[in-house]
């Protein structure tokens, strides 16, 4: 795509020059570290008790009790942090007027969008990969099921990729970064909580919200299952919002 690499490099410069990235990553690692520590500590207390209780010790499993819930925790932190990374992508260009440069250089809209998207995806990878030492630490004390760790990270990456796509869309909608962040945060929360409506929607409605809801598709990954249906969900979710972004960018043709 024309311009993808050029815009990707520029975005990387901008992201790493901005304090937002450092603040968001710092909070991400502090909170993720805290969650991980809590899970691990709780497990260690339980296993201490299990030395006197054979029934309990049979049911204790490091991966199920520390790793799987940790991926759930990560998804919540990403829901809070990624809108802060995506909010400036287009809204800042609109506010400062640089969008006029971007749209008058010989770059295609799709190429530009992909450049921005991939740059943010790299940030996601950096943040999520930063939690790998936690797993290594765990491995040094006990033996982990690395299959589940791997599939969990795949799930988190796909989930984050979807969050970023929606975040870019809301960023294109407004020239105010805060509004963009609030919109994407709200929308993600809705996609998250949609599944709660399952209890009163009846079988068909319940099935539909389960299908649309963003977090129901993460669970299988955290249990070691990489199912194409769930992979497909995140890919469709991502492509949908990227497509909507392109459509929205085209409205400049008649809005002026």
């Amino acid at each position: 795509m024309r311009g993808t690499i050029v815009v990707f490099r520029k975005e990387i410069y901008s992201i790493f020059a901005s304090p937002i990235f450092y603040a968001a990553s710092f909070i991400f690692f502090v909170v993720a570290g805290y969650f991980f520590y809590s899970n691990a500590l709780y497990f260690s207390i339980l296993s201490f008790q299990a030395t006197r209780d054979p029934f309990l010790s049979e049911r204790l499993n490091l991966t199920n009790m520390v790793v799987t819930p940790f991926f759930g925790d990560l998804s919540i932190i990403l829901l809070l942090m990624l809108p802060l990374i995506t909010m400036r992508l287009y809204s800042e260009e609109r506010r400062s007027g640089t969008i006029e440069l971007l749209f008058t250089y010989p770059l295609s809209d799709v190429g530009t969008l992909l450049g921005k998207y991939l740059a943010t995806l790299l940030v996601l990878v950096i943040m999520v990969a930063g939690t790998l030492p936690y797993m290594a630490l765990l491995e040094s004390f006990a033996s982990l099921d690395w299959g589940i760790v791997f599939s969990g990270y795949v799930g988190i990456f796909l989930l984050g990729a979807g969050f970023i796509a929606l975040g870019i869309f809301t960023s294109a909608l407004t020239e105010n970064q805060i509004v963009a962040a609030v919109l994407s945060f709200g929308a993600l929360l809705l996609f998250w909580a949609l599944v709660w409506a399952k209890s009163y929607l009846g079988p068909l409605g319940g099935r539909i919200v389960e299908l649309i809801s963003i977090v129901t598709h993460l669970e299988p990954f955290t249990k070691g299952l990489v199912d194409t249906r769930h992979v497909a969900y995140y890919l469709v979710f991502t492509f949908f919002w990227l497509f909507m972004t392109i459509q929205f960018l085209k409205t400049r043709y008649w809005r002026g």
Partner: protein
Amino acid sequence: MIIAESLTKNYGLKPAIQDVSFEIQRGEIVGLLGPNGAGKTTILRILTCFMPPTSGVARIDGLDTSTESLRVREKIGFLPENVPLYHDLRVTTFLRFAGAAKGLKGKRLQEEMERVIIDCGLGEHRNRLIKHLSKGLRQRVGLAQALLGDPPILILDEPTTGLDPAQIVEIREVIRGFGGDQTVLLSTHILPEVSQLCERVIILNKGKVVAEDRPENLRARIQSGVRTLVRVRAPRNTFLERISLVPGVTGVKASEKEGEFVVESKGDESTRAIIARTIIESGWDLLEMTGRDLTLEEVFMHLVTEEDLQLD
């Protein structure tokens, strides 16, 4: 090089420009002149492929801006209004991005960056963050990115707005240096700029072209004959009365300043001699007498307000 054929652009239902047509030849420096809201920026945005017209066609070097947008954009260096720049980048980082965006690579990119940095006088500022630069320097960075890749067409939206007088002179020097092979279209609402820089001017008002000609022709079109400014020590009414009777004089008007009058006359300058003689013979003191053509401001005001400037 640049052809606009009955361009119309509506924002919602409100027309921003209506049926705008003009043509610009290779190597011309043309000014797009008009009050704020006349549609200058809209026209430039259409020509730079930021958005297509609602109807009509714009062609750059024979290419339609709506359907061959990417190829058109390769030929254009554009300085948007208010000079938007990425403030968190350094000058060289930004120029490298701009150059790469225009398809420059490797050695050629490096050479082009050096060239525009030197041409725009950014040498000692190349490693500074753009947000730390003064307005004048930012303007030069904006110009530098437009010049990258040596595009055959330069489109500049109010290139000197917000600069101090010394900076304005500098930027104008740079722009005047173009011409030749490069075609320049610049918008402005500063009139002296047009007479200094442009060979031709297109005047816009309320979204329509109201005039298009060389600055001096425009002046001649509105002003018939010769205008003379006379400073004299004389009783106002008697002066007005006596001078208006001089053969060839078509009008006399007292200016705002005490003792100053503007006399308009037919034909050549010979009437001036008669006016001078009349003043002396009346026993008045003639302090100053200078030819005074309509300024471009007056031409412009005449065209955009449709007021008659002719003295009656």
